[in-house]
């Protein structure tokens, strides 16, 4: 946000990036209607047919025509993806085949009924998730949605029409659609169509559905659909205004915090929060705060909270489950930390029997007067419970505790009996008080209360006169009873809280220690096996789960060979799910959006550089790994593992590099040794053969000829050794180019000079353009290329023929050629010429092992250029190589005012 109304550069950047991401993604077009029968499918097919006419590759993924003639007519001519058949409870369910669709990869795919729930065993539970994957793959999608299928409107629609639909689409899917087309039909027309039997109704639910199609309902639904579309239009306009920045209104963001309690009304709270957040265009968080640790025995309330948090997450919230002694303080702290100024809580119902009880809203208001607290009515009063209330404090029933309490009371009674006449009765009461106190401290609140009852009863019956009756003669004993009760309750409460805190602390400490130990193990691990062991140990201890590590191989492909998942777990790894998790970098399997029916949870190991593999987790109790907090912990754990795996990867890379460097060094010294050992005798041979001519007396004709032949052959052998060694060096790939900016002319000159003798019988014609720029190359190597090409030209052409050397700019390259007027190249072998040990003619009399052109190719390739051979139209061969132009350095212009170093 800026003061002068210009868009913030960061926002602009984000927008550009979003636009880029959108461009790579497919586009989603939603045909949106108020109810079934308005003609969404018809409209979608019509649009698809128009696209087809434009030459777009359209494929039907799923379309339900329900036997309607007009609709079926529109299906004609469109390719249809065959459905996948999934066996389910003895019957074959036909379901959309996502893999086939991705394989087919059309430009546009039609996916009717976005809210559809896939058959069990499909990759995703919901069709909209399939669509998501299609869009990710860059496929455009047309789809249809009814208004009652939108998640946040589900409540409203069920309130209006009395029918609750279970197949819903999260709002963010609808909101993220690139285009929404409202398919509208006035209710009267719809009812008319219904009468004519043009609307498909499933047989079994006809009555209920007929009830649904009442005019009042239809009007309300139509209004909802229209309003939702209008909201979207508003939104688009806002986005447009922001983009064009024409006096855009920058609003402050009021982030929302939805405080979820264990009660059943929480879902409504979440939906309300989602609607408010979307209207405010603000981010929102949904938090569940509780006082005690959730035990391993996830009760139904706990599961419900988990589902509610999941719902919130699907509606776009950030979710968290907090454990704190004071949930109110925790909520307020969270709100402040994340700058959330509005808190949404469920409204507590007044409790006449507990007038001192203060509602959640009151308590938050008291703790943080500066935060707005919004109360939302609950759905079902009976199910209401205070958000984050202390009811979790209820300890499990402990029969032994009560027996012990009874025993202690009995013991005190026995102990006190002989003292009846020795001490005063009130002192005996002290003994009972002491017993209650001890029970409260040792056994908790329940037994303490029981002990208080029993103590009072025993004291009254055995000691308070009249003895052996429950009658009380003196009013002062009533006081004793009351004090005894209050002490029991207070101490019991305190003890219970203390014990609970200790438990929470111990559990946290255990978690921290486990994490620390695992991190320590991981940091010490040098082998994948050790990492796997550390994983198994940690998951076994913390989640009672088995684990398997699927890592990538050298080519970054996931290896699926790992056989078992922990000891004694029967679940086996599903390769498809693991691969999906790896490819998408998202969790899959148990408790996720992708194949939730799987027995295992698959977490991708996302390291800073890339995804390093998949961690498969097989919990004994599936619920254990589904809690959002556990999932977060597991994800932290997975990223730790990923970092350890990546570290191992780099250790390996470093080791390999070291080995490679060593072998490189070895190869270089070997090359140096060979070249020395081969060249030295050849140098001696050449020198001695030549100095034979200098001996006294001078050699005779025959001797001189022998000496010359010897010298020539030695030189040729030397050249071949050089070729071989050069090839070896170039093939090792480690020839360091000494690239410098220089004119091409210069190396042409030195190449000609080097081949002076061979070229003596040929006319050389050089044609270089005047404006040829400096080129960056290794002079020695490029000279070698030219020398080899010239040598070839001289070798394979008749004496006296002309050889042309030329160069020309060609786009970003400079092409250099050597042309001859010889017999040309054998047809069809232009490419193979550059292979090692190839020669133009198979068995020629011309010498050479045919390494020359291979060396040329290696050198030119090392410079980032290309070399090719072709026959000239006028006959003769032509070798062309290119060098990249680059940007030559500039040379400061010289002051022309002086000449020959003197002022002109």
């Amino acid at each position, binding site marked *: 946000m800026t003061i002068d109304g210009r868009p913030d550069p960061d926002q602009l950047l984000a927008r550009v990036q979003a636009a880029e991401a959108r461009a790579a993604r497919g586009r989603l077009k939603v045909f949106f209607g108020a109810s079934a029968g308005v003609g969404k499918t018809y409209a979608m097919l019509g649009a698809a047919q128009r696209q087809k006419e434009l030459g777009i590759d359209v494929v039907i993924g799923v379309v339900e025509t329900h036997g309607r003639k007009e609709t079926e007519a529109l299906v004609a001519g469109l390719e249809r993806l065959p459905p996948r058949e999934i066996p389910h409870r003895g019957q074959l369910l036909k379901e959309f085949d996502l893999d086939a669709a991705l394989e087919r990869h059309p430009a546009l795919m039609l996916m009717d009924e976005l809210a559809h729930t896939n058959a069990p065993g499909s990759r995703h539970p919901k069709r909209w998730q399939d669509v998501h994957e299609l869009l990710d793959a860059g496929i455009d999608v047309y789809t249809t949605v009814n208004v009652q299928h939108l998640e946040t409107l589900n409540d409203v629609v069920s309130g209006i029409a009395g029918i609750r639909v279970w197949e819903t689409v999260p709002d963010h899917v609808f909101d993220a659609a690139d285009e929404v087309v409202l398919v509208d039909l006035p209710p009267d027309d719809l009812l008319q169509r219904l009468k004519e039997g043009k609307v498909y109704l499933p047989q079994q639910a006809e009555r209920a559905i007929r009830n649904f199609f009442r005019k009042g309902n239809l009007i309300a639904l139509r209004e909802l659909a229209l309003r939702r579309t209008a909201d979207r239009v508003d939104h688009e306009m806002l986005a447009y205004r922001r983009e064009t920045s024409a006096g855009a209104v920058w609003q402050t963001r009021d982030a929302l915090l939805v405080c979820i309690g264990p009660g059943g009304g929480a879902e409504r709270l979440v939906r309300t929060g989602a609607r408010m957040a979307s209207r405010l265009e603000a981010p929102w968080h949904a938090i569940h705060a509780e006082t005690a640790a959730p035990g391993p025995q996830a009760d139904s309330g706990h599961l419900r909270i988990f589902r509610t948090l999941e719902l919130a997450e699907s509606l776009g919230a950030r979710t968290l489950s907090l454990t704190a002694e004071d949930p109110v303080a925790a909520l307020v702290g969270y709100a402040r930390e994340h700058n959330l100024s509005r808190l949404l809580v469920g409204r507590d119902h007044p409790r006449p029997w507990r007038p001192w009880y203060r509602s959640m809203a009151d308590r938050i208001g008291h703790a943080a007067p500066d935060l707005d607290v919004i109360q939302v009515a609950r759905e079902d009063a009976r199910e209401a419970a205070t958000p984050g209330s202390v009811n979790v404090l209820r300890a499990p029933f402990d029969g032994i505790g009560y027996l012990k309490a009874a025993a202690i009371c009995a013991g005190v009674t026995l102990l006190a009996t002989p003292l009846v006449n020795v001490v005063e009765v009130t002192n005996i009461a002290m003994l009972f008080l002491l017993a209650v106190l001890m029970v409260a401290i040792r056994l908790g609140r329940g037994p303490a209360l029981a002990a208080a009852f029993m103590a009072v009863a025993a004291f009254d019956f055995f000691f308070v006169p009249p003895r052996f009756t429950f009658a009380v003669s003196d009013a002062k004993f009533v006081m004793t009873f009351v004090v005894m009760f209050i002490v029991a309750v207070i101490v019991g409460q305190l003890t219970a809280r203390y014990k609970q805190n200790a438990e929470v602390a111990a559990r946290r400490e255990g978690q921290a220690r486990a994490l620390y130990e695992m991190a320590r193990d991981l940091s010490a691990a040098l082998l994948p096996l050790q990492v796997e062991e550390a994983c198994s140990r940690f998951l076994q201890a913390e989640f009672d789960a088995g684990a398997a590590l699927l890592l990538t191989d050298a080519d970054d492909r996931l290896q699926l060979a790992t056989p078992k998942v922990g000891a004694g777990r029967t679940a086996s790894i599903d390769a498809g799910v693991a691969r999906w998790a790896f490819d998408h970098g998202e969790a899959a399997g148990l408790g996720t959006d992708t194949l939730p029916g799987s027995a295992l949870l698959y977490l991708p190991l996302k390291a800073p550089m890339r995804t390093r593999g998949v961690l498969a987790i097989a919990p004994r109790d599936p619920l254990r790994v589904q809690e959002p907090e556990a999932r977060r912990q597991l994800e932290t754990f997975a990223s730790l593992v990923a970092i350890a795996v990546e570290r191992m990867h780099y250790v390996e890379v470093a080791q390999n590099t070291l080995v490679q460097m060593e072998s490189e060094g070895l190869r270089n010294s070997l090359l140096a040794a060979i070249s020395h050992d081969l060249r030295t005798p050849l140098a001696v041979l050449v020198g001695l053969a030549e100095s034979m001519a200098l001996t006294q007396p001078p050699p005779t004709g025959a001797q001189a000829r022998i000496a010359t032949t010897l010298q020539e052959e030695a030189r040729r052998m030397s050249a071949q050794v050089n070729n071989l060694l050069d090839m070896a060096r170039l093939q090792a790939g480690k020839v360091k180019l000494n690239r410098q900016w220089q004119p091409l002319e210069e190396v042409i000159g030195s190449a000609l*000079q080097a081949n002076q003798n061979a070229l003596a019988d040929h006319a050389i014609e050089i044609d270089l353009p005047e404006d040829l720029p400096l080129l960056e190359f290794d002079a020695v190597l490029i000279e070698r290329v030219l020398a080899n090409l010239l040598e070839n030209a001289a070798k394979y052409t008749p004496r006296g023929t002309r050889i042309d050397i030329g160069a020309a700019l060609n786009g970003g390259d400079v092409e250099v050629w050597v042309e001859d007027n010889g017999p040309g190249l054998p047809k069809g072998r232009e490419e193979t010429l550059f292979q090692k040990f190839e020669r133009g003619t198979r068995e020629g009399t011309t010498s050479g092992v045919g390494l020359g052109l291979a060396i040329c190719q290696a050198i030119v390739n090392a410079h980032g250029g290309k070399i090719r051979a072709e026959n000239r139209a006028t006959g003769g061969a032509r070798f062309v190589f290119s060098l990249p132009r680059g940007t030559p350095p500039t040379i400061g212009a010289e002051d022309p005012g002086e*000449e*020959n170093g003197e002022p002109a």
Partner: protein
Amino acid sequence: MSEPHVGIIVIEDEANIRRFIKLALETEGFQVFEADSVQRGLIEAATRRPDLAILDLGLPDRDGSEFIKDLRSWSDLPIIVLSARTAETDKVAALDAGADDYLTKPFGAAELLARVRAHLRRRHRGEGGSSLVEFGRLKVDLSRRSIEREGVPLHLTPIEYRLFAYLISNPDCVLTHRQLLKNVWGPSHVEDTHYVRVYMGQLRKKIEDDPSRPRHILNEAGVGYRFVLGAL
């Protein structure tokens, strides 16, 4: 051709190569001293006072460049280094250290003798100190800063002239890019090798008959340039 009392020291560890060099040089009447290591070479060079040194760069005890630096500290005799192909950096290092020329193995006796003669000739001429040079169709008088081609004055820019003058005063020597840059442009330009190349191209266009097939300013790929007055 006999040049009595001209001594040449050959420092080479391969006995066979030493032998053929010695053979070739002795047929020309030079006196040859042999050494098989840098250590021995320095001792021989100091005691025998040779007129020229032929030095192999791949000696077992020390780096050839060290020999050159050592020798250059008290002598300016011509040094020709022998080196293997693909060892351009060694050559450049030796030339920068003060060597005058190089020969790549394998080389013939004729090639070696031609170089030796050229450098001995240069040494004698250097002692004469003439500023008048004639080659090809050019006449150069360094003392008058004049260059003529068949009687017509030839104009060079200041840098071209400095480059040309430096080349002419070091004939037959291989001059590295670094040496040229340092002496013509100054020590701050020693990395800008493209300067030398561009100006060398301009100079060639002015003084060579066929700049793409030069006869005087020769390119030694990867090393530098050699200026020759006539054919070696």
